[in-house]
């Protein structure tokens, strides 16, 4: 029987949302292809429990590579394991999350080795007569396209938040099959020799979890300007994000970059300040429930993409806004 295989990683304490999303994508694709099983390959250290969780979240079968050395995963080790398992199991499709490890490294190299057609950063697919067409934004999200991948196996990476994780169903049954392989046999040629933590301990919620995000762009003008956004975030209990120029200028850490090549976020409220609304930025912010734009230029593209707009210089609206929110808070 043919299958769709989802590449997943997890830690002893948690399964990343991206793994559940890619399993949901595999389940949906397997259903649409008909008579195809949804498998997962799970890599990690002490993650057997997580393998069962993947079954509850939609996998029919999980290949488990559980090894202490996988507590921190080198790209080439993940690649070696993925290649080994894919060659053994010969799935019809291999799905990866489009993250740094898989989208940036493992999926392209695996596809090359298998001579597999590959489509990266997909947001969906359409199946007709067992043929898959992969849906994906192109030109920074200004256009959409359907791609076809040819080859003995197809590989795709899926964009974060394009698929909703399936709720856990404790009644689902499936096999967890340990794979007989020692990941230490894959000796990476490129390896991390030093890890440096520079991020300050953050106050407030993380970008991924925050219900409200305050995000600033080039229009903030300086790092000092950005401080005002932190003040605004503080009264709202919000996380702070930024556009690419803001990140390149060092006003906000790169890990807080919102957009196609940064974080894809989906808060209840996204307040974009001094951001023009480039499609590459909106690719990361566009799933927010309500987008508020504050920009001095009434013709800024963001006023065609936001739900609520304020035409003003931020210097004139943000300080009173902070004051008003403070008053609202104290009045309860």
């Amino acid at each position, binding site marked *: 029987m043919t299958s769709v295989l989802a590449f997943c990683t997890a830690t002893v304490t948690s399964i990343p949302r991206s793994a559940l999303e890619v399993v949901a994508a595999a389940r949906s694709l397997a259903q649409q292809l008909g008579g195809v099983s949804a498998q997962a390959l799970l890599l990690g250290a002490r993650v057997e429990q997580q393998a069962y969780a993947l079954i509850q979240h939609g996998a029919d079968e999980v290949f488990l590579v559980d090894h202490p050395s996988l507590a921190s995963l080198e790209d080439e080790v993940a690649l070696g394991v993925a290649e080994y398992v894919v060659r053994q199991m010969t799935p019809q499709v291999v799905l990866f999350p489009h993250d740094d490890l898989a989208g940036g490294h493992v999926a392209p190299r695996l596809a090359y080795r298998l001579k597999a057609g590959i489509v990266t950063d997909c947001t969906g697919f359409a199946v007709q007569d067992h043929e898959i067409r992969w849906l994906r934004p192109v030109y920074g999200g200004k256009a*959409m396209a359907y791609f076809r991948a040819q080859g003995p196996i197809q590989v795709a990476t899926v964009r974060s938040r394009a698929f909703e994780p399936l709720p856990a169903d404790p009644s689902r049954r499936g096999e967890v099959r340990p794979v007989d392989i020692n990941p230490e046999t894959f000796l990476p040629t490129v390896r991390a020799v030093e890890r440096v933590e520079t991020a300050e301990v953050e106050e407030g919620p993380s970008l991924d979890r925050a219900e409200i995000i305050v995000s600033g762009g080039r229009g903030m003008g300086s790092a000092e300007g950005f401080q005002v956004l932190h003040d605004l975030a503080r009264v709202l209990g919000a996380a702070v994000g930024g556009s690419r120029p803001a990140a390149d200028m060092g006003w906000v850490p790169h890990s807080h970059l919102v957009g196609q090549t940064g974080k894809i976020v989906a808060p209840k409220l996204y307040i974009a300040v001094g951001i023009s609304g480039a499609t590459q930025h909106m690719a990361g912010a566009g799933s927010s429930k309500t987008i508020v734009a504050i920009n001095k230029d009434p013709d800024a593209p963001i006023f065609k993409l936001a739900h609520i707009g304020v035409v003003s210089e931020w210097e004139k609206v943000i300080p009173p806004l902070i004051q008003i929110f403070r008053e609202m808070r104290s009045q309860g």
Partner: protein
Amino acid sequence: MHIVVCIKQIIDPEVPFHLFRIDPVTKTQIRGSHPLVISLYDEVAVEVAIQAKEKFGGRVTVITIGTKEAVQALHQALAMGADAAVLLSDPAFEGVDSFGKARILAAALRKIGSFDLVLCGRQAGDVEMGLVGPFLAEELGIPCATLVSNVVSGNGKIRLKRPTETGYEVLEAPLPCLATITNDETNVPRYASVKGIRAAMRVPIPTWSAADLGLDLARSQEERRIEIDEMWIPQREIRCELISGESAEERARNLALRLRELGLI
């Protein structure tokens, strides 16, 4: 250290949405009167290469697969500080997929002969597949470091900085190797100086064809594994509710009230 940077020339990706057009038959963007630029991560890669040259010595060569117009992109990279450039151009190169592009670039690197480090952008700024870099490393059979932002040391083995969620890590790789480049605050591309621009114009830029590279691309054309089937521009306009108010303070107040009314704060 000899660093070779693979750059792609693209239509300016900052073209606003309302001026963006595609040709649904060729399934590509229509050029119109938009400027051509070096794809943004490739420009960053040129900056990384030049910084490495400044720190550790050596030279930088830039190569591109493109039409005659792509010479412009090579000139810009030379003006930024690259030392040599090669244009890879042949009608047979048009329409090859990422597998084909990796074959062409690999053939060019073999013709160049000696190189220590190959840099590619993490993804091109138009169709953004992010495949050619890792494919090229595989094609050349050399180690591949992905999503790095700078070269931190270059003696014998190379050390590369890779941004992470909470800081960065330092990767060590043997040479020759390939790295795909992402941006951070240390590699914002420099502007070319007037002197650099003048000097760049005097650098001869050879053009290599498929025959020069000893490449038969008939197979690559037949065996295309990645194809665009259909392309369209989605409609996405939202009716934006503009907050009214005479003064900025009044607009701030009205915004706060509206957000409270919507239960968002």
